[in-house]
């Protein structure tokens, strides 16, 4: 029996019972605390909606000029300014302005949330070897677990809508910020830290004036990665009711509208390129002091 061709798996009944136990357990939990947790995320929802309305309500040329202006400030290159203007105008011309604004709001809020949560975790990991040992595997799981899988409990808990989408995206996209904050701080030269100590810096002074500034190029690389991963989640998030560029793509997939998919997909790519260039330009300018290094 043991050496037969089939793997000796648990009996179907047992398996069913285990699954059922987990499901009912989680269901009771979500019935019990779902409302409370939803209330907890309420402010986040308000912020997201407010931000989305602001982007949608503002005149289009303000958004175009603003985004291009930020691009110029980050990179000091007029080429990027022009590129952003053209790209955003094309998106508008092809009728995807509203969805693009919704996606932009979503991505920016997700990124902000990832930074606010991720950086302190990264700082903590950099200070504690044990912390690093515990958190790294968790990050590995978060990044490799197929994202649909953790959509299920989030949806069970919070239903469908923006907030569960936000949470799913943040879970998926937060890892790079944490990893690169940790790495960046750990890579700060020992000598600079010793100098800070020798001149009587407190822990906070050392963190704010030496460790974080020196880790910032790495942290920026992490933020860049986080934005890219958040954009990659847009389509999946649209399955649980997040509005934006993902929805038409989903529609296109189910109805075989090739052109619709292509347009909206391209808009996601264009957004990705804009965000990437802005953050990279900013990251490079942070490393200005390394110019002329031998």
């Amino acid at each position: 029996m043991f050496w037969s061709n089939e793997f000796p798996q648990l009996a179907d009944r047992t398996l069913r019972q285990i699954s059922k136990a987990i499901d009912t357990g989680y269901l009771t939990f979500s019935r019990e605390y779902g409302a409370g947790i939803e209330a907890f995320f309420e402010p986040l929802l308000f912020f997201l909606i407010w931000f989305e309305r602001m982007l949608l309500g503002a005149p289009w040329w303000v958004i175009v000029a603003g985004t291009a202006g930020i691009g110029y400030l980050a990179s000091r290159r007029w080429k990027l300014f022009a590129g952003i203007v053209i790209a955003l105008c094309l998106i508008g011309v092809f009728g995807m302005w509203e969805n693009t604004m919704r996606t932009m709001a979503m991505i920016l809020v997700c990124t902000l949330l990832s930074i606010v949560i991720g950086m302190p975790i990264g700082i903590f990991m950099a200070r504690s070897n044990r912390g690093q040992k515990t958190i790294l595997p968790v990050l590995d799981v978060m990044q490799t677990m197929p994202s649909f899988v953790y959509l299920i409990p989030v949806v069970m808990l919070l239903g469908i809508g923006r907030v569960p989408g936000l949470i799913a995206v943040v879970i998926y996209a937060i890892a790079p910020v944490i990893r690169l904050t940790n790495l960046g701080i750990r890579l700060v030269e020992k000598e600079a830290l010793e100098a800070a100590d020798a001149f009587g810096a407190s822990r906070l002074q050392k963190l704010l004036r030496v460790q974080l500034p020196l880790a910032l190029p790495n942290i920026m690389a992490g933020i860049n990665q986080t934005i890219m991963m958040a954009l990659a989640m847009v389509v999946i998030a649209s399955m649980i009711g997040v509005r934006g560029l993902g929805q038409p793509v989903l529609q296109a997939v189910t109805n075989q509208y090739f052109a619709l998919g292509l347009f909206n997909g391209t808009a996601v790519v264009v957004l990705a390129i804009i965000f990437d260039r802005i953050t990279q330009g900013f990251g490079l300018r942070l490393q200005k002091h390394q110019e002329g290094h031998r």
Partner: protein
Amino acid sequence: MSTDTIISIRHLYKVFGKDPIKAMKLVHEGMGKDELLDRTGHVIGLSDVNLDMERHRIQVVMGLSGSGKSTLIRHINRLIAPTEGEILLDGQDVLQLNAEKLRELRRFKVSMVFQRFALFPHRTVMDNVGYGLENQGKDKKTIRETAARWTARVGLSGFEDHYPGQLSGGMQQRVGLARALATDAEILLMDEAFSALDPLIRAEMQDILLDLQNELQKTIVFITHDLDEALRIGDSIAILRDGAIIQTDDPQNILMKPADTYVADFMKDINRARVLRVRAIMEPFQEGDVGPIIKNNTTIEEALQIFAETAGDKLVITDKKGEKVGRLTVEDLIRGIRRPTTAEIQADALENAN
């Protein structure tokens, strides 16, 4: 000379390893360095170091690499905590300070210059120089003014907005020096501060340091492995070997009376005529001595030059006040250049021991 001790190190031990306290017991029971390493894996960094340093003087600590110099200097501002012993700064035991008091000490009383500069690469020259003042909690205006003044004082005017990466090694260390001086700390720790610089720049930096010291009268602890440097700037030199101090003395005395053959070996490549001053070898002045008058800090080389240019057979030596304190003949000078023999050193050491 006043004996106003500012830094006093007493019975300082540092053992590196997993359980230094336990290893310390073995050391007290007389276990040697090699045996301790073999049997317990612990390394003795410093072993019963006693050193008093005077206010406003330059105390050089010299030794080869691995002798414990850098470990020793880091004990003074407690960047490294000792396994056993006392470090008194103006009578205050540094080891008794709590974290806040220790930060105060590092902010206001002791500052440091590092071998590899340890500048902050993301800060401009000005912001590096002003770093210590930020930690002191000074206001922005004061920081800017003070930093600008010290940047200019070390000769870096015009480079205020450069980043360290854009400067040469010598210029970077000027920034390091300005950063340390800007806090107005009384004690300046210099850990092989000029060792990473090439010889010409090093000599230039020594000049800058001596020049500043004339004016500022800091207490400087200067670590080096370069004997020429030690003799040039040290008011007193402590020689460290395997974590223990073998000899602490005036540079002239170390040259004339090395404590043991190790120290003598150290000195053997030194051009004694150029380093030794006539005060270290002169005979007492006697009434009736006549000849060219020279100051007591003249080197033997210069004194020989004067002999070569004049007819007399004696030199008369005066002290700082101009009083005649000694005399020298050519033979005395030549004897001064001669290195003490091993037998003499051992006889001296025996005499000192008794």
